[in-house]
């Protein structure tokens, strides 16, 4: 086997596939976050075990390694580490911003809604009574509002990333092995971060780090190492068979009358398929999807340049902004749907409007970055994530 020089001999051109799929994942996350949305039917979680979160975290790991890996080799650990932490800070601020929107929504519901039918649900608003504790717990990332679990995961993953990246550059396989070991330990000893007022993080970072590190490993030469295996027809057949199996199993969730098709022993072994701890069935499902994608969509696939895929690519290139916008738009869509009309037509309209707004915003950000980059007159900018595969 050809020796693979760790990393960075690859041409520094954007792998648009990363942007495309991250953009699509952002759209799917938005659609899934709008409660009671008929369009969410099309999202991949209805057709298999894994969902858009896996895609998002994997690609984020991949791009983070690509961008900061280069910086670490060229400028050293301290500079690269500082850049990673700067990025982490931006994400933290974005999270706090979303939290304040969330609080505004809750306060509105608390002050405007009363119905004797829902006394029990209204307990959820109790935390407004002691904002001192709630806000501090939110700043500590321990208070977890609904649908706001992805950014805290991303923050923790980036926080630990500098030493991980250091090791990945030197001993990629050791780093990956350690990541797998941590994943196993998390399952064995039920490691997770506590949250407030009770319970644990919805996305267990000790488990989900596996996808992030695996993405980073792929970016730093792992993908090249896997290439022969990915080209093998055995892989294609295995992946296809597993995806068909997962699709069959999901069908039985929607059509309980088909549940008899799942033998009892299989159900016992398989269920529950745990999202919090990134169930190995979910991970395998993502791997199968990724293997087929890489196999059948080449890096230079002409359609990647087509205007039809441009909106998703653009969204993927500005993932943090578009992700936050998506969370906000999901709140807003839900608000409009309950306040005015929530029928199927409105659900479709809101979904399309959301995607249009996300695309428009991505377009605007791209335009601004381009204009600003030209105006500054210094072509040599810091190796911004934009150089390769979007932002980290």
């Amino acid at each position, binding site marked *: 086997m050809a020796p693979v020089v760790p990393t960075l001999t690859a041409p520094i051109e954007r792998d648009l596939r990363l942007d495309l799929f991250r953009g699509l994942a952002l759209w799917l996350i938005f659609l*899934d*976050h709008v*409660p*009671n*949305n*008929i369009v*969410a*039917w099309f999202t991949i*979680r*209805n057709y298999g075990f894994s969902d858009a979160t896996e895609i998002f975290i994997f690609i984020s790991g991949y791009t983070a390694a690509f961008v900061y890996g280069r910086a670490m080799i060229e400028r050293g650990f301290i500079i690269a580490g500082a850049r990673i932490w700067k990025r982490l800070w931006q994400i933290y601020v974005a999270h706090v911003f979303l939290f304040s929107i969330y609080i505004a*929504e*809750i306060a509105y*519901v608390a002050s*405007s*809604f*009363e*119905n*004797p*039918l*829902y*006394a*029990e*649900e*209204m*307990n*959820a*608003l109790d935390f407004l009574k002691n904002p001192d504790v709630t806000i501090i717990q939110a700043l500590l990332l321990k208070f*977890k*509002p*609904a*649908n706001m679990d992805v950014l805290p995961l991303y923050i923790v993953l980036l926080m630990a990333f500098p030493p991980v990246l250091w090791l990945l550059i030197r001993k990629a396989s050791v780093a990956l092995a350690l990541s797998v070991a941590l994943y196993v330990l998390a399952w064995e000893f039920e490691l997770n971060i506590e*949250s407030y*007022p*009770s*319970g*644990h993080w919805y996305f267990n970072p000790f488990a989900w780090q596996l996808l992030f590190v695996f993405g980073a490993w792929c970016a730093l030469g792992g993908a090249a190492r896997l290439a022969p295996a990915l080209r093998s027809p055995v892989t294609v057949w295995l992946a296809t068979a597993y995806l068909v199996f997962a699709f069959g199993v999901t069908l039985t*969730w*929607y*059509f*309980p*009358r088909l*549940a008899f098709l799942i033998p009892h022993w299989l*159900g*016992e072994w398989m*269920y*529950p398929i*745990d*999202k*919090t701890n990134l169930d190995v069935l979910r991970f395998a499902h993502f791997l199968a999807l990724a293997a087929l994608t890489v196999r059948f969509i080449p890096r230079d696939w002409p359609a990647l340049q087509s205007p039809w895929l441009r909106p998703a690519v653009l969204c993927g290139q500005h993932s943090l902004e578009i992700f936050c916008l998506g969370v906000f738009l*999901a*709140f807003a869509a*839900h608000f409009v749907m*309950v306040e005015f009309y*929530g*029928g199927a037509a409105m659900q479709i309209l809101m979904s399309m409007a959301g995607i249009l707004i996300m695309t428009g915003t991505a377009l605007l950000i791209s335009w601004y970055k381009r204009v600003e980059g030209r105006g500054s007159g210094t072509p040599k900018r810091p190796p911004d994530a934009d150089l390769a595969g979007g932002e980290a």
Partner: protein
Amino acid sequence: MKKWTALGRAVAIGAIVLCSAAASGQPADVCAVPGYLLFGDSLLDRVNAAVTKEKELKIVALGGVSSTLPGPDGASFAYPARLEAALGRRLPGVKVTVTALFKPRQTAEEMAESIDGILLDYKPSLVVWQTGTYDAVRGTDPEEFRASVSDGVEKLQAGGADVVLVNMQYSPRTESIVAIGAYADGMRWVSREREVPVFDRLAIMRHWYDAGQFDLYKATKDLKMAKSVHDCLGRALGATIIDAARLEARDGTPPQ
């Protein structure tokens, strides 16, 4: 929850089986629920024996605040009492009693702990166990929640009682505030694992909301709508129990 209902809902649009006698020209029943939301494969053998042999059906309804209504006589309008009325109507000659035991702010774990005492005190043939809302509000680990419900059901079955699980209410206002999906899924797993019916209050109420039968979004202090929702829930739950226990019963539509 969405994951479960999204496809199901679309299928339902094509295949709605109304419980009401709309076809025969009577006014459509406000409580109408598609049959697939009410009827499943799990059986209630203990209930069947109690009704056919002993002619007496003792039910305990265990739940949180969403199993009752506020006010001094709120409980008499809540779904456990309405279930008693519905079953009494549909099973003439059988003595049906529903004892409602509800406490605010109880997790599934705490409820499961109270089960031994309930079995001893009331010796029910059937326990209707409503849970999930408070756990979702509080943010219990979904996995722990599932395990508690599973343990509770096991205890009830070992103690000789049939079980029907009742999941959360559909609450459009708090839908993006309280994430109930994982808890509803957890109850479904338990229902599969222990072969007990789940009364899918969430999907049923969502159906009513989507079909325009009840405006669950309305802000009101009036108990009127809450009372009719609970009456409908009691009747629908009665239909689920009668079907799962394979009982001969009278028609479900109440006298006008």
